[in-house]
Structure formats: structure tokens, C-alpha cells
């Protein structure tokens, strides 16, 4: 096929890819069609990338075949794609959120690199359009690169990026200064100047801004932040499309930028938080109320494995409340085993899934589904909350903030967050490793409730012992 016919064909295939992305995203709105939607989207992606490879082979941008360039593409795809495939396949489900954040970081990084590369190769002074697109691509791409890496590190609980909010001394001042550098630099370049040093200063300011923006935000808000950064990456990719004058980058980037923004809003709404509030670091300044809650607290009652087993085995209804502790301990199989034991004894077992239990919405569903917990037993918050008062035992496994009754009163850092009404159950057993606090960094009043028995254990080990104890009854 000659060069004249291949160009429009490739562009039509790009259009088909874009259509697949849109339809794929629509299908991912509903559980029944979601997997199919993702497959459709990946099909569109494969088609688009394949067509691009053919296009670049037949119509090389420099006019002739570039062997080194192709070696680099192959090496990059093998290394990057290989690591992507490996990590996405092998990492445990608990590590999914940080993995998504990592993939987002490198996407933003790639978009920024494209703009940097094009800027280095510019001949003469670029026009205003090129300058605007380049600066925006560099800024947004760099912020999302370092921001997502920090978010990923926070979710992994790395020591340099603890999940609690980290206050940067003079944070507001630093942020203001960085913004000033970026804006002043941008204005200078937009005025028709070409200056590598100024571009480098903008790049550095954006990279640091990504860090200072994410560090002060607490782990509980990370899902919303990752979603916001995901939307940023989409926008950066669209800007890369403007830099390279490529329609498919513009379309797909803008699509993700906009849908990611809506999704961020939905996620923040599910936690009853505003995006702005999160970015300002709402959970951070909660020290005062910690003391207030702690002072009102009573004593904690411990319960033994055998007592807990008896309570569970002779209950007529049990609601399991899983949280991040369950995910960390990989206790999803153990909990299913316990539930089966109890069901054999005629106990009615359900699972109460808080929309943001775990570290990401849907985290618990994914984990429990992996352990083959029957889907109908998983109940959403609005659905199950009225049932707690008729329930004999609520078994809380590694869940904290989402059960804290303090959320019902104003004045607490978790105020207004929808919670599971665990304290309405007749008895409460909490399996937890220690009295440590959740993300919000506050004490949980549920633990000092007289109805509550604390079972201090690792979720998996504790559940295994409970299974043994129930069997022995």
C-alpha cells in the first residue's frame, strides 16, 4: 500500500480506537458489562498502537527508516510492558491501589518527557500554541508523576512516605513559591521566548509541587487523590497530543481527563468529603479532637478466642465487617471458612461492605470475591445498616474509621462520613492487632463500647483460631 492511502486509513483506525475507549468506559459503569468494557477498550488500544506502528514504518516522521528508534521502541515495550505484565499479574490484591498509582505516575512521566524532548529539539522560537501546550504538558505531567509516586509510597507505607499526613514546614509558603516560579516562567515563555533554563525551572517547580501537594494528605483520602492525579495524567496526555499534533492523544487524553474528574467527585461524595477539602489536608489538623475523644473514652474489654467462638456459634445472625486489616493479613479465605462453619451450624452470615472500606472503594468486594464468598452475602452499607439492631454479633475484622460512631457527631475529623451502624448490634467482636488508630488518626469509640469485646490478633491467625474453636464446640 502506498503512503497516500495509508495515512487516512491509520487515522480512521485511530478513530475506531477512540470509539472503543468511549464505549468501553460506558460499559464499565455497570458490574454486568464492566469486564467486557475493559476488553473492548484494550482491543481499541491494541488496534490503535498497531496502526501507529504501521504508520510510523511506512511514513517515518524523518522521511527515512530509523533503526535505532525502533530498537529503542522494542526495548522500551519489552522492559516496560514486561514489568507491567509481571507486576499486574503477580502482586497480591492488597497492592492493587499502589500499583494503579504507579502506572498513573509513569503515564504522566511519559507525557512530560514527550514535551521536554520536543522542546529540546525546537528550531527557532516556538509559537504561542506550542509554548502553551508544552508548558502545560510539562507542568501537569510532572506534578502527576511525583504526586502519584508519593501516593503509591504512602499506600505501601514506606518510611519516607508515611500514610499519615506529613506537614511540610512553611507548606503554604513553599506551595506559593513553586506556583509563582511556574506561572512567572510560563508568562516569560508565552511572551515569545525560548529558554531552556526557564523551562528547567518550571519542570523542577512542578516536580517538587507534586511532592508537597501529596505528602500532607492522609492515607484515607489517597483513593480520591489518585483518581484526581489520574485525571491530571489524561489532561497531560491531551497536551502531548497538542505538542505532537496528534488527534488520538488529544481525544483519549481529554476523555480520561474529564471522566477522571467526574469519577473523583463521585469518590469524594461517597466519603462525604469535598475534593478541595481533601487537597487542603482536612484530616491533618485533627490533634485537638483526638484528645477530646480519648478523654471521654472508657475501658476496653478483651475477649478470649473461646468466648468469641461461643458467641458466634450460638448466634442466630452474624454480620462480618471487613476492613483493611483483613486485606493486609490476606485473611479473606480464613473469614470465608469461618462463615461456612457458622452457616453449617445454622447461623445467618452476611458481610457489611462500607463503600470505602480498605484503601479503595470496592477493595473488599474484590478480596472476598477472590475467596469465593457468595456475592449475595455481600451487602452494601445502606442496605445492611438497618439490620444491625436485629443482629446478635457484629464481627469487625480490621475495620476502624468506617465503624467509628464519632462520625455521627460534629467536631470529629470523621464527622459526616457515612459509617456502618456496628454499635447497634447486640454484641460486637473486634479482631484487631492493637489499639492502633485508623487513617483518621483518632480513637474509635466503638472499642470502648461495653458491648464490644476486643480480640487482639492478626486477622488471619485470629480467624484460624476461631475456626478451630468453633469446630471444637
Amino acid at each position, binding site marked *: 500500500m502506498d503512503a497516500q492511502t495509508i495515512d487516512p486509513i491509520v487515522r480512521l483506525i485511530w478513530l475506531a480506537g*477512540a470509539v472503543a475507549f468511549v464505549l468501553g*468506559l460506558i460499559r*464499565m*459503569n455497570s458490574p454486568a458489562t*464492566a*469486564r467486557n468494557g*475493559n476488553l473492548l*477498550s*484494550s482491543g481499541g*488500544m491494541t488496534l*490503535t*498502537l498497531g496502526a501507529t506502528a504501521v504508520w*510510523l514504518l511506512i511514513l517515518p*516522521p*524523518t522521511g527515512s527508516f530509523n533503526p*535505532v528508534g525502533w530498537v529503542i521502541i522494542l526495548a*522500551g*515495550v519489552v522492559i*516496560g*510492558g514486561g514489568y*507491567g*505484565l509481571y507486576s*499486574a*499479574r503477580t502482586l497480591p490484591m492488597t497492592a*492493587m491501589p499502589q500499583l494503579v498509582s*504507579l*502506572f*498513573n505516575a*509513569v*503515564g504522566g512521566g*511519559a*507525557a512530560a518527557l514527550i514535551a521536554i*524532548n*520536543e522542546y529540546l529539539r525546537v528550531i527557532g522560537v516556538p509559537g504561542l500554541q506550542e509554548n502553551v501546550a508544552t508548558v502545560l504538558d510539562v507542568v501537569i505531567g510532572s506534578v502527576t508523576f511525583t504526586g502519584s509516586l508519593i501516593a503509591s509510597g504512602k499506600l505501601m507505607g514506606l518510611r519516607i512516605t508515611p500514610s499519615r499526613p506529613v506537614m511540610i514546614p512553611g507548606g503554604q509558603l513553599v506551595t506559593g513559591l513553586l506556583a509563582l516560579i511556574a506561572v512567572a516562567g510560563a508568562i516569560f515563555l508565552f511572551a515569545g521566548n525560548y529558554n531552556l533554563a526557564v523551562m528547567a525551572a518550571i519542570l523542577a517547580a512542578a516536580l517538587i509541587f507534586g511532592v508537597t501537594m501529596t505528602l500532607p494528605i492522609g492515607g484515607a483520602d489517597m*483513593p480520591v487523590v*489518585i483518581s484526581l492525579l*489520574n485525571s491530571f495524567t*489524561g489532561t497531560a*496526555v491531551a497536551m*502531548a*497530543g497538542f505538542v505532537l499534533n496528534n*488527534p488520538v*492523544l*488529544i481525544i483519549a487524553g481529554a*476523555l*480520561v481527563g*474529564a471522566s*477522571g*474528574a*467526574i469519577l473523583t467527585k*463521585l*469518590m469524594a461524595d461517597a466519603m462525604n468529603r469535598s475534593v478541595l477539602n481533601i487537597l487542603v489536608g482536612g484530616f491533618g489538623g485533627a490533634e485537638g479532637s483526638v484528645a477530646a475523644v480519648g478523654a471521654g473514652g472508657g475501658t476496653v474489654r478483651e475477649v478470649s478466642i473461646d468466648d468469641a467462638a461461643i458467641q458466634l456459634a450460638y448466634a442466630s445472625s452474624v454480620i462480618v465487617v471487613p476492613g483493611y486489616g483483613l486485606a493486609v493479613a490476606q485473611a479473606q479465605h480464613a473469614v470465608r471458612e469461618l462463615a461456612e462453619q457458622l452457616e453449617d451450624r445454622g447461623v445467618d452470615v452476611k458481610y457489611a461492605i462500607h*463503600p470505602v472500606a480498605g484503601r479503595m472503594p*470496592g477493595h473488599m*468486594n*474484590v*478480596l472476598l*470475591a*477472590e475467596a469465593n464468598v*457468595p456475592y449475595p452475602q455481600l451487602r452494601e452499607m445502606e442496605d445492611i445498616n438497618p439490620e444491625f439492631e436485629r443482629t446478635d454479633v457484629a464481627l469487625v475484622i480490621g475495620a476502624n474509621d468506617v465503624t467509628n460512631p464519632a462520625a455521627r457527631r460534629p467536631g470529629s475529623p470523621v464527622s459526616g462520613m457515612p459509617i456502618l451502624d456496628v454499635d447497634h448490634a447486640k454484641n460486637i467482636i473486634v479482631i484487631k492487632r492493637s489499639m492502633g488508630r485508623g487513617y483518621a488518626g483518632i480513637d474509635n469509640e466503638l472499642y470502648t463500647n461495653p458491648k464490644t469485646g476486643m480480640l487482639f490478633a492478626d486477622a488471619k491467625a485470629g480467624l484460624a483460631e476461631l475456626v478451630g474453636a468453633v469446630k471444637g464446640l
Partner: protein
Amino acid sequence: MNIDLAFTIFVLAILCGFAVISKVPATLHTPLMSGANSIHGIVLVGAMIIATSADDPLSYFLAFVAVAFASLNVVGGYVVTDRMLQMFRRKPAAPKTEKVEA
């Protein structure tokens, strides 16, 4: 492509992005985010373009990192999304295990 045409496409795609997200159940928030995350792996197209038009060591280096980053995004993104969504299957494996247990 003229800038006005590019900008037209950009704005229409944004409107499209706003429209594709409707009332999503909370359980699908994470997979949906991950799905959107893989779509911006399209940046690999741009990385391939800069790799084939590179002609000096620095450009080759930047292009290589961009291609590797973009490939990590696109491959990892789709695989991890699929893995999450696989978990939502209504137990096709169930009859098998039940038979074994019975």
C-alpha cells in the same frame, strides 16, 4: 491539523468524558479509575513518534524512558483492571468446588 480543529476535538472529547460516567456503584469506582488509567497509556503513541524522529543520544534516551513508562502504563493498566473485574464474576468456579466438597 490546525489548532482550531485540534481544539474542537479536545473540547468535544472533554464533553464526551463528562457524559460517559453516570451513576456508578461504589464497588466499581476503583476498577473504573483503573480502566481510565489504562486509556491514558495511549501516550505510547506519542512516545513511539518521538522515538522514530529522534536523532541524538539525549533524544534517544528520553524516547526510551517515555516508551518504557508508557508501556508500563498501558500493559499494567489493562491487566490489573481485568484482574480486578474478574473478581466480580458471579462464581463460575463455584459448581466445581461444590462438586468436590459433595
